[in-house]
């Protein structure tokens, strides 16, 4: 298996004085100390990981752990303060505007926690959005969108507006929109977190079933260990922008790297 995505020593500092904050971090200061000294917030701190071809890679952490910031580096919705992001061996930070646009249209697509649907477009138009943006023919857009609409189980809803759908259905639209773009890499940022438990389980099943056929490289962000264990081929655990542990679900359960991870695992054992 080859690495599709490689993140190399990426740090992201939000604020006016990123260099000063980075220097402090290298001296071993904590997140809170850096915030107090420079007013900068640390999103991601010297983080490296790689995601293999065809796997579901789950990034887990509590809110504020930097997981949503990290995933946005993979399609450059956020640029790092320092470090490298390689996709298929190419440094995406070196891309110019045109190359980046092409990359976003053809290589990577994304599903958002708050759906990010276009409220003034119908369900079908929303699903076709990625195709339309890259200039596919109208017939092609309609056919592909119809196919994915059916694949996520929304037949009959093509002409509806997003606000007429329930949360679970809206996220199916978000998923179909990302799948219709037919990119090898799929990013899901807390895609199912806003949904109630039964619908969440439904969508998890659906994603797993689709992945059986599609074999995409998926990066899945969640704060829920159950979800991570259920979906992930490998799981990375983040805390304060740092990588605490990476491993298969079994490793995480049997050999938690530290107290933080252990607390997640214990909580789960307690509820079982």
């Amino acid at each position: 298996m080859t690495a599709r995505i490689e993140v190399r020593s990426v740090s992201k500092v939000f604020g006016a004085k990123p260099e000063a904050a980075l220097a402090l971090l290298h001296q071993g200061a904590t997140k809170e100390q850096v915030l107090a000294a420079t007013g900068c917030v640390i999103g991601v701190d010297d983080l490296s990981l790689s995601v293999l071809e065809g796997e579901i890679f789950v990034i887990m952490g509590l809110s504020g752990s930097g997981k949503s910031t990290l995933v946005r580096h993979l399609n450059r919705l956020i640029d790092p303060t320092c470090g490298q992001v390689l996709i298929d061996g190419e440094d995406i930070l070196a891309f110019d505007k045109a190359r980046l646009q092409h990359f976003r249209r053809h290589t990577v697509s994304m599903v958002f926690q708050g759906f990010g649907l276009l409220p003034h477009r119908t369900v079908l138009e929303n699903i076709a959005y990625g195709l339309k943006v890259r200039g596919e023919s109208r017939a092609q857009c309609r056919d592909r969108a119809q196919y994915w609409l059916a694949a996520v189980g929304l037949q009959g809803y093509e002409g509806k507006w997003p606000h007429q759908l329930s949360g679970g259905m809206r996220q199916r639209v978000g998923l179909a929109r990302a799948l219709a773009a037919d990119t090898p890499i799929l990013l899901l940022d807390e895609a199912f977190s806003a949904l109630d438990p039964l619908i969440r389980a439904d969508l998890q099943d659906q994603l797993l079933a689709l992945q059986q056929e599609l074999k995409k490289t998926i990066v899945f962000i969640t704060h829920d260990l159950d979800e991570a264990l259920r979906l992930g081929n490998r799981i990375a655990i983040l805390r304060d922008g740092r990588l605490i542990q990476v491993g298969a679900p079994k490793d995480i359960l049997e050999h938690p790297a530290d107290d933080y991870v252990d607390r997640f695992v214990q909580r789960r054992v307690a509820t079982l």
Partner: protein
Amino acid sequence: MFPDDLTFSIADWVNRGVDALVTRYGDVFRQVSDSLLWLIVRLESGLRWLPWWLLLIIVGGIALHATRKVFSALLIVGLLFLVGAVGLWDKLMQTLALMLVATLIAVLIGIPLGVMAARSKRLRAVLMPLLDVMQTLPSFVYLIPVLMLFGLGKVPAIFATVIYATPPLVRLTDLGIRQVDPEVMEAVNAFGASRWQQLFSVQLPLAMPSIMAGVNQTTMMALSMVVIASMIGARGLGEDVLVGIQTLNIGLGLEAGLAIVILAVVIDRITQAYGRPRHQVQP
């Protein structure tokens, strides 16, 4: 008493500047003036050439399309009929033409400026105080140099109207675009939409209620300039108000004044209806 040695005046300096502008670029301004006048006169004669009943039908059709209510459309047509019935039809058309051209220019300037302001904090910082000045500076102050540059008549009236009526459109366009849900913009960006695709397929449509509120404000403010416009020789409903004041003919003034109100109501109803989103967007 304020000490004399601390006072200064920019009046002479400005006067010389305007004089120089008039002597040096007078021809250019005259040309701009002529082509603008041509547009207004064309529109005006077109509107007056249309049979009155056809115009009422057209306005009724637009009103019906905008409001989707038969009653509103009938009311709008009825009010305009009333203006014709008191003998002010021609003047109504003159005012309408003036207003349409002023609004068109305000839209052509205001929406792009608003879009740019939404994208650049720096531009907004410069633009906003300028808009405040445009709205609060008494119109006679800039009317004088405009008169010197463009002569009497409709063209300076248009300029004065545009200066006064553009600011709300810039502000509301800027506001509307900045209020587009950031997650929607993030999603659109993640799918690799270009700047123009973002603008035309997402930002402008979603900002449309706000932009239409701006157009509505612009037309209302343009109408409020009608009487001032007539003072510098633009004909229309304002003329009758002015004559009413000058000859103490209160009835004449009131008739024309009410006709202006009716025009305002008609345009207000139509632009507001277009501003309402067709599919109620829920957060």
